[in-house]
């Protein structure tokens, strides 16, 4: 009888937890902003950013990284670092594109590791010449202690992999000669 009660309590507790945390949430831009320390206005021109290859999150699916969220994180990271003079929505001297080529996610697990690959290309909009391109691989592991719900750990792993990817990209771009 005691065992039966424990079982019922477990089911009730689990149902409550699932109802609170089972739905997948999209990766948040603010959590993907990379801390980059580089000289301010390293590139003395403005830039426009576009991202493709991302995916939207459905509530019953896995947490994903959308184009808009990654572009916003990339923009905020550039502004925070002061890499360009400004980020514009159009009509800038440079065009920075990011193609999310891979987001390798686990189906389940206690520790969750996400591997990410993004190809960045910087073009001079005046000459249409590619002045810098780099394929960046990154990964991040959200440990079991990071969050109780798996969907939450996956989101944290997504955000960590994206943050590291942006950090590596901007560090490389800051060292490039245009």
């Amino acid at each position, binding site marked *: 009888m005691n*065992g039966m009660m*424990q*079982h019922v*309590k*477990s*089911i009730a*507790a*689990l149902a409550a937890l*699932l109802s609170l945390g*089972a739905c997948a949430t999209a990766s948040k831009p603010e959590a993907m902003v990379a801390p980059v320390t580089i000289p301010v206005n390293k590139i003395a021109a403005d830039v426009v950013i*576009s991202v*493709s*290859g991302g*995916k939207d999150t459905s509530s*019953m*699916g896995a947490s994903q990284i959308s184009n808009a969220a990654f572009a916003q994180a990339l923009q905020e990271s550039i502004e925070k670092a002061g890499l360009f003079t400004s980020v514009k929505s159009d009509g800038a001297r440079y065009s920075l*594109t990011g*193609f*999310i*080529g*891979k987001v*390798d996610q*686990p*189906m*389940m697990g206690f520790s969750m590791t996400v591997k990410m*690959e993004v*190809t960045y*290309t910087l073009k001079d909009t005046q000459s249409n010449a590619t002045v810098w*391109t780099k*394929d960046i691989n990154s990964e991040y592991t959200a440990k079991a202690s990071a969050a109780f719900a*798996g969907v939450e750990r996956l989101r944290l792993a997504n955000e960590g992999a994206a943050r590291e990817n942006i950090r590596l990209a901007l560090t490389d771009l800051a060292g490039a000669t245009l």
Partner: protein
Amino acid sequence: MEVMSNYIRMASLAWAAILLGACASVESARAPDANVHKLKSFYVVRVPEDERGIEKLIAARLEKMGLAASSGDADRPAEPVDAIVTYQDRWMWDITMYMIKLSVQLHDPQSGAVIARAEATRPSLQRKSPQGMVEEVLGELFK
């Protein structure tokens, strides 16, 4: 301790139910300016953990599509190719093992950059054979 193991058991069952009952999906994306239709020769890199020969299935399907394809363990082919193919296969158990997700990427052989990708996810009730998954993903990649 028993309560904890009940939690884990129930959480596993709930997660399995979500995986079994979800919808199948297939999707793809291409890098700006990428033209996959001009690519004629491919090299598929075997994933070290893959002992099911998925790399051979991908190469065989590419050949069936009229394209030149080879596969192997090395990161780079012996002969130059138009694109290098990588993949990630995910498997689940439901009475038998089945492939729940297959992702395939095409890389530029010079820069290593991904130029196109496609993936299919099929839960247990909508499962396909590995050959079927490969056919579906490559069909999406070259559509």
